[in-house]
């Protein structure tokens, strides 16, 4: 019973979605680093693989919970609910269909070269299934509204954070009489901030392994300690270039920032894994939970098991290894107009925003947040030229994706329910 056909369908499409995230979406997170020359392709893939997986497994639970049971209330599908004994099976079919619909829509969009967000597809698909199964009142519109609002807020917040990060870099480094010395001086502090933030996201979970209920103060101190160690490492690694630099000092500034950008690239990969693994694993977690209960109950109390998150993380890494590296190489070639100082600011702004959304359990689009962050750097006079038509494309992908994924998911659900029940 555990390996009923619906479980296989959910597992296959869930893995496909994870593969797709690794194959296509990771490229955007790493593209700026490869484009600016901060990371070679090989190193970008290693950093992305490690941190995407880490983010998915360590912090991927929050958003997964939202997709699993935040958009439509699973209580309605319990044996005592509206559908009686069929309830759990109906929810399993619906979630599998939502995954399948999102996967088909993504594949079709890719074929036609349309820019489509994985996050928007899966949220639209779950809403579509919910509306057909329960009617409009069955969907938690409050939560959906929160998610949609986060899609507007996250690029804006990414832009604001990146804007100020770049303004700070300009003030501390670019405006200085000796920009190279200023970079060497401030680099450890920048690494400390990024390191502390990274540690904060998983310190609580990590400390829980060794102590029952870590105090917030302990978490904070441990994170600051991690940031401090990273800063000391940076202090030892970052050195002013030998000899008297002839010509532009900014060449050296960028070279040093290339090293710093590895840290923000890792942060972006971590944030991306943490937020986006849910797109593949959220519905799958629901199906696996129901299957584990023999299709007689909808378990909601337990958090998503780590091994399920690990499946998602592994799927992303496989996508990265089999196809994603190609996309990273292509995108890296196109993004040569962004230098490490700018990449650092944009990646920092985007990663912090996505991590914040992740902590709040909100599925956001990492790519849109990055786009917002890059525009933020542009507004701070940081980038040579930006093509703002892209923003229109993004708006269009929003308008198209949500109803399309919802309709497709509803159609698949009606079909599969007729076949399987």
């Amino acid at each position, binding site marked *: 019973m555990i390996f009923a056909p619906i479980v296989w369908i959910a597992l296959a499409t869930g893995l496909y979605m994870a593969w797709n995230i690794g194959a296509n979406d990771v*490229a955007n997170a790493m593209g700026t680093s490869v484009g600016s020359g901060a990371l070679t392709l090989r190193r970008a893939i290693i950093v992305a693989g490690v941190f995407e997986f880490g983010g998915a497994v360590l912090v991927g639970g929050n958003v997964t919970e939202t997709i699993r049971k935040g958009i439509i209330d699973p209580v309605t599908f319990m044996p005592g609910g509206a559908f009686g004994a069929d309830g759990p099976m109906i929810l399993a079919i619906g979630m599998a269909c939502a995954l399948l619909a999102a996967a088909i829509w993504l594949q079709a969009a890719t074929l036609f070269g349309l*820019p489509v967000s994985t996050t928007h597809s899966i949220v639209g698909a779950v809403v579509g299934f919910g509306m057909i199964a329960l009617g409009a009142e069955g969907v938690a519109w409050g939560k959906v509204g929160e998610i949609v609002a986060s899609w507007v807020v996250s690029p804006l917040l990414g832009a604001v954070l990146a804007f100020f990060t770049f303004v700070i870099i300009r003030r501390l480094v*670019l405006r200085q009489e000796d920009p190279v010395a200023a970079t060497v001086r401030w680099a450890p502090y920048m690494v400390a901030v990024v390191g502390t933030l990274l540690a904060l996201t998983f310190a609580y979970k990590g400390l829980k392994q060794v102590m029952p209920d870590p105090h917030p103060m302990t978490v904070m101190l441990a994170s600051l300690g991690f940031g401090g160690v990273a800063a000391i490492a940076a202090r030892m690694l970052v050195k002013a270039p030998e000899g008297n630099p002839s010509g532009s000092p900014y060449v050296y500034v960028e070279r040093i920032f290339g090293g710093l950008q590895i840290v923000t690239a890792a942060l972006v990969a971590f944030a991306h894994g943490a937020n986006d693994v849910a797109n593949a694993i959220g519905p799958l977690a629901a199906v696996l939970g129901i299957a584990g209960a023999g299709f007689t109950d909808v378990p909601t109390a337990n958090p998503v098991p780590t091994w399920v998150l690990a499946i998602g993380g592994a799927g992303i890494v496989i996508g990265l290894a089999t196809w994603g590296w190609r996309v990273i190489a292509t*995108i890296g070639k196109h993004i040569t107009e962004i*230098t490490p100082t700018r990449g650092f600011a944009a990646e920092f702004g985007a990663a912090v925003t996505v991590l914040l959304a992740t902590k709040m359990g909100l599925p956001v689009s990492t790519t849109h947040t990055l786009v917002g962050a*890059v525009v933020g750097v542009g507004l701070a006079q940081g980038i*040579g030229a930006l093509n703002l038509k892209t923003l229109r494309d993004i708006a269009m992908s929003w308008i198209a994706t949500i109803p399309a994924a919802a309709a497709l998911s509803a159609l698949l659900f009606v079909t599969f329910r007729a076949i399987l029940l």
Partner: protein
Amino acid sequence: MRTFHQLFARSPFEPLAKHGERVHEVVQLLKPVTDAFLAEDWNRVAELDEQISRAEHKADEVKEEIRDNLPKSLFLPVDRGDLLRFLHEQDGIADSVEDVAVLMNMRRTVLPGEVGQAMSKLVDKIVLTGEVWFDLSQSLPDLQEASFTGPEVTRVLEIAQRLNDLEFQADQLQAILGRLAVKHEEEIGPIGFFFLMRIANAIGKTANKAENTADLLRMMLAPS
């Protein structure tokens, strides 16, 4: 998501510096063509006119490419109009050098020694102005890299000030050349005088255009 890399358009600052390089190649031919003209080596003048025309065309190619890549939808760190005007003025430097060569090649105008020396002095000043302008033009990518702040701005503003001074000096030398031309107007003849004035104007225009690029750059750097 293929949108992300489409967000990045080609930065116009490196191409502007490249256009500056091409224009500089034209400016470097001003001295040789003037020398040949004053030495009445008409074959050499024709040869250099041709060479200048070809170099100017190469600069035009870069200019067109920059214009084609600057649609209105682009978001730039400085005003698009200022950038396009900068390009126009920079291109005007090469155009006026070409005008000089065309006029020198058009008619075998022979000048009295004193007038020739004044023209030579004016051209030397223009060549110096051209070198200072070239430094300014080549600083564009660094300015963008420094995000239009810091020591790079101070340096560029100093260069711009020097260009203003040089243009003023060139104006004075052009006036001297004019006065000497009037002094020798009988000897030069009416048609020769007409050509001489037009040549002097074209030479002077080179400095004006170089000064205009400096003024436009100052406008781009003005705190918004």
